[in-house]
């Protein structure tokens, strides 16, 4: 299927441990949905259709983290079926909120939630897709920004690189002409170390950024930790701040573990 003129790219949407929110972003793109559906062939997307075509797929959108042995095997098969594999959201890209288990005894977690622990089969760690297979592109966020998803699809159709920034939330805050809540009001904010993409949502709603988009390129977490302490945050509070929806992203992980050591 190499003829460029006729062939519509076949898209598959695959779910692992997640909340469904990132794939819902596609259905939430109300103005673009029918256009997208006209430009691509949605070959596998169980949340939206009962028609499920077999691979191979040109683009695989993968939501969710790997938390079970079966899923660790399934992602290998998904990778084989997808020419290009894109992780969508914090679970697929960094392990998600469920990666909080990674610092705990998961057997104890199972006992808390489940009455019959012996029936539960789960891995000790919740891990990002890239830890299992090569990933061609990552869309950050908890959830992703639907406009970044549309931009990704549009760019792919046009054969160009998607325009997805890797700078920090601070840049978006400046663009919105927000007064810095950390400087002006002493509110702890992860904006300086978090990748842009949300449009500086939390600071625009009078609260500190809590890091949905994960670490920016080369974040200075040590400096921010220090700043949080100056604002009166205890080490366990700082550790909790880094231990959110991207807790297992290594820069945030390192920052939270350093707080626990001091």
């Amino acid at each position, binding site marked *: 299927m190499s003829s460029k003129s006729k062939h519509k790219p076949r898209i598959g949407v695959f779910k692992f441990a997640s909340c469904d929110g990132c794939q*819902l972003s596609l259905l*939430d793109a109300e103005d673009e949905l*029918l256009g997208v559906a006209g430009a691509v062939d949605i070959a596998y997307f169980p949340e939206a*259709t*009962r028609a499920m075509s077999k691979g191979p797929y040109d683009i695989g959108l993968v939501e969710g983290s790997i938390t079970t042995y079966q*899923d660790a095997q399934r992602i290998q098969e998904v990778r084989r079926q997808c020419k290009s594999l894109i992780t969508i959201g914090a679970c697929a890209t960094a392990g998600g909120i469920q990666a909080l288990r990674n610092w705990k005894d998961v057997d*104890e977690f199972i006992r*808390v*939630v489940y009455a019959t622990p012996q029936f539960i089969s789960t891995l000790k760690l919740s891990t990002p897709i890239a830890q299992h297979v090569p990933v061609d592109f990552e869309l950050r966020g908890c959830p992703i920004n639907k406009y970044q998803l549309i931009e990704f699809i549009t760019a792919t159709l046009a054969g160009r690189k998607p325009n997805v920034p890797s700078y920090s939330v601070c840049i978006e805050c400046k663009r919105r002409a927000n007064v810095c809540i950390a400087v002006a009001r002493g509110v702890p904010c992860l904006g300086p170390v978090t990748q842009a993409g949300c449009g500086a*949502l939390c600071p625009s709603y009078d609260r500190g950024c809590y890091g949905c988009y994960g670490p920016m390129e080369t974040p200075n977490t040590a400096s921010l930790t220090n700043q949080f302490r100056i604002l009166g945050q205890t080490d366990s509070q700082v550790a909790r701040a880094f231990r959110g929806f991207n807790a297992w992203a290594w820069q945030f992980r390192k920052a939270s573990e350093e707080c626990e050591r001091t």
Partner: protein
Amino acid sequence: MTGRGARTIRVDTLARVEGEGSLYIKLVGERVGEVQLRIYEPPRFFEAFLRGRHFSEAPDITARICGICPIAYQMSAVHAIERALGVRIDPAVRLLRRLFYCGEWIESHTLHVYMLHAPDFLGYQDVIAMARDHRAVVEKALRLKKIGNRIVQLLGGREIHPISAAVGGFYKIPTKQQLRDLVDDLEWALEASLETVRWTAGLQFPNFEQDYEFVALRHSDEYAFNEGRLVSNRGLDIDAAEYEDHFVELQVKHSNALHSVVRGRGSYLVGPLARFNLNFDKLPEVARKAAVDAGLRPPVKNIFRSIVVRAVELVFACAEALRAIHEYEPPAAPRVEAPNRIGVGQAITEAPRGILYHRYALDDNGLIVTAKIVPPTSQNQKRIEDDLREYAAQLVVWPIEEATWKCEQEVRSYDPCISCATHFLRVVVEREDVKD
């Protein structure tokens, strides 16, 4: 397999539901054998990792249980925690929360009615295929959905996992003008919802009535969202704090999934049908009239008609949103301060799919000691299987493919959210279905 042997209705991946599950029904001659709604979605252990987190994080963390109904999680979380802390919210905040919930109902119900459920009635695999023949209908649906999302976006910052809901109120509240800017859209949405009632009422419904125990919140003078007594058509009338005394989760052998039942009785139904049947008198006139004109009067006992009831709830949500906007006067502060203190609090709110129960125990630093969450789909799960056992009996003579699609449609009538249910259902994680 045919003839006198066993036949199987088997759907390895249930489509057009949130999350991952499969369906397995064994037909032995004219008899229905095993019925299993299997959940293979991996567990994520929210109740476990909420421990040790500060109560202020609960609305953000629990939202991540479900990308489709995050507001429901945020609302049950803040109300339960406010109860634990003895926090009283401003009446204007209460009104904004109703408006917020209206946005989620509009968005979620529209998604389900048009994009997940209607294709079954009209014989399409999905809404995209439906749009080829019914472009205007689908475009109307997308606009309606977008208006629900606009409300959520304004009050919460974004559609999925909004960031403004807080214990005690909101991080930021809208101005009167910002709300007034929604009025034109909502007036259009109200008309579109009335059309949705008429449109759904014209669909074909299988003849399938069951004797359900309906369970929903009931409030003295509103169609309940966030407050009220939990009632049923079989005499249940309790406070949220008594929930765990009246509902138990039973282990079932076939799926190792705990099924929620009313103590001493059995399965029950939560969601639009339950709310409509128990609270018909609390619907605004415009919604009641639309229902009656469409031939709906309580009790509606045919689950396939839930698509019409959802449409009636769309009318309610649009009318209620307009009422809230007209009544709104901004509160003195976006939120009241919530002190760290020891306490236990429970709350039930009406998620689009039915009641959502949260309980938190907090320590004197405001950290969560224990959390319990019971989402609507885990409550409906046993009821879905009970239905299928009856419904499949009507289909034993049908070709297996058609019977399968009909059973899927029945399951989708509940708008099941498996992502939600999994963190609480006791599940065996397995991708391979059993072989017959």
